[in-house]
């Protein structure tokens, strides 16, 4: 049993970081991420953690310093949002190839322009192709647990890849909710210490990091990176089982909610999944057989498991909080890919919602269910929820 606290999603991330007690935390403030490092800076100032906290002059420097610290052998963490991630991008893309298990808390916020501080997923969806493990969180409780899980998945010798833990800007990061914080000693034992096997400062075993690799070997490096990514599934399961021993919860690749007998299923990430659960409850109360699938592990994407979970569902609506302009939306694309191999494929509809923090209401998701059940779909075009005409 842990201690229940009324805290925000940002504080939940900071609580996890307190328990992880990383060697180095590097960050530059950006709304709505700022309260994470603000809270963590208090732990540093109060001597609650013995982390070296490095305030830097930009996010590009933040990720560069995290790379330096991790290369040396330290456990490093950072947090950012939107434009901050965009400015980091050069180093973010280099990190998986360097095989550095940095964990970043990403508080999802819309990308400029027009400039906007509110939630959507355009920041994270811009980096899903570069090789970070991506984990999504419905609420503050999941932010906390996913952050603990992330460190162990990232640092496992079979993986050695960076992880981003996503939460919705403001909706999760600034909302106070009950969060159960588990015992410090148990969590400390769970997260352990980072192995120094690959530490650059281990001068007895000198090595080069980040050399120029030309066409003779670059391809092989990237193939090895893909191999490491494929190992995430088994590691995630194992680490999840270990974490279960502390929390009593399960850590699946995705959560299904009333999908067993469902005639229509909605797929949606992060906080809107909670709102969708309320919509499922309301529809079920009217005798309508609908359900939800909430992706949690988005990179690597669990195609086979998703296919198995949705193979008997007649119609699926996928809700994206970002667009891939001129192409299918990112979450929708993955689900369409996953279901392609089925002999009898479900009907599908792509929806865009919530850009720049536009509210998504339970009633709007109920309307999506009604539309899916009515069969009036348009496979060729995405639809927009809550868009003003």
């Amino acid at each position, binding site marked *: 049993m842990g201690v229940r606290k009324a805290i925000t999603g940002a504080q939940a991330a900071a609580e996890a970081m307190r328990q992880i007690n990383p060697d180095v935390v590097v960050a530059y403030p950006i709304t709505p991420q700022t309260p994470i490092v603000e809270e963590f800076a208090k732990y540093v100032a109060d001597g609650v953690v013995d982390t070296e906290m490095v305030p830097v002059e930009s996010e590009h420097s933040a990720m560069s310093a995290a790379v330096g610290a991790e290369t040396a052998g330290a456990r490093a963490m950072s947090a950012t949002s939107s434009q901050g991630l965009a400015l980091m991008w050069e180093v973010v893309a280099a990190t998986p190839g360097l095989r550095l298990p940095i964990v970043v808390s990403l508080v999802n916020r819309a990308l400029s322009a027009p400039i906007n501080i509110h939630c959507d997923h355009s920041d994270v969806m811009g980096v899903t192709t570069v090789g970070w493990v991506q984990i999504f969180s419905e609420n503050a409780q999941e932010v906390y647990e996913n952050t603990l899980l992330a460190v162990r998945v990232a640092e496992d010798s079979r993986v050695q890849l960076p992880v981003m833990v996503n939460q919705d800007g403001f*909706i999760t990061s*600034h909302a*106070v909710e009950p969060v159960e914080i588990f015992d410090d000693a148990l969590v400390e034992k769970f997260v352990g210490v980072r192995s120094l096997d690959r530490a650059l400062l281990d001068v007895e075993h000198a090595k080069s990091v980040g050399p120029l690799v030309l066409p003779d070997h670059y391809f092989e490096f990237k193939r090895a990176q893909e191999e490491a990514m494929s190992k995430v599934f088994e590691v995630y399961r194992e680490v999840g089982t270990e974490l279960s021993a502390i929390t009593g919860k399960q850590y699946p690749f995705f959560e299904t909610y009333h999908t067993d007998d469902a005639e229509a299923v909605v797929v949606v990430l992060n906080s809107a999944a909670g*709102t969708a659960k309320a919509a499922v409850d309301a529809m079920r109360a009217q005798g309508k057989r609908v359900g939800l699938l909430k992706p949690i592990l988005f990179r690597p994407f669990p195609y086979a498991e998703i296919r198995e979970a949705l193979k008997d569902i007649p119609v699926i609506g996928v809700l994206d909080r970002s667009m891939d302009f001129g192409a299918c939306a990112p979450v929708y694309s993955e689900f369409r890919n996953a279901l392609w191999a089925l002999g009898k494929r479900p009907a599908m509809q792509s929806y865009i919602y919530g850009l720049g923090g536009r509210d998504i209401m339970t009633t709007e998701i109920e309307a999506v269910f009604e539309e899916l059940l009515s069969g009036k779909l348009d496979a060729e075009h995405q639809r927009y929820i809550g868009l003003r005409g």
Partner: protein
Amino acid sequence: MHDWFQEWFCKFCGALHGRAGQGAKSGSQLLAEAAFKEGKYIQSFPEYGSERRGAPTVSYTKIADKVLKSHEPIVTPDVVMVLDFGIMRSIMVAAGLPDTGILIVNTRVCSQEIKKLAQFSGTLYGVDATGISMELLGMDTPNVPMLGALVKLTSIVKMESIEEVLRAHFLAKIGEEKVQKNISMLRRGYEEVFK
């Protein structure tokens, strides 16, 4: 009724309107934490715009006996509290508030003019939260007396719970004397709310 429907039963949805710097966010959070202390499920979240002191702001509090799954904002509140009635000239604070709902305004008089401004036909309650705060603390922090008024009208939480949360939050920051003054402000709000 199905079990899953019971889980989504929002017992109390409150909206606290004010101007940035008046404590709408912390008021909403104090209320939520008091309910949390009493074993309730809670959500407390502000609506952010461009952050600057004096701009209209609103914070929401949800209190329930079951897990709060939805993260949507409150569109049909049970109670609306207004820390600065001037914002009612530009913000429809009572939008979605049913006639059976409660509107509490920081004011010295419950005039027809305020009611008209709010476009609200239910019962309007007033509390001189600014006056109480100025008298006891020497500064305008109307959120605490407002919570006292809310407790008097709804019994949504116990006064002691808010007092405990006030102490836990502010003792280290402002010291015992000011904590006591805040508790007095809370009690004055409770006693002095009027129709």
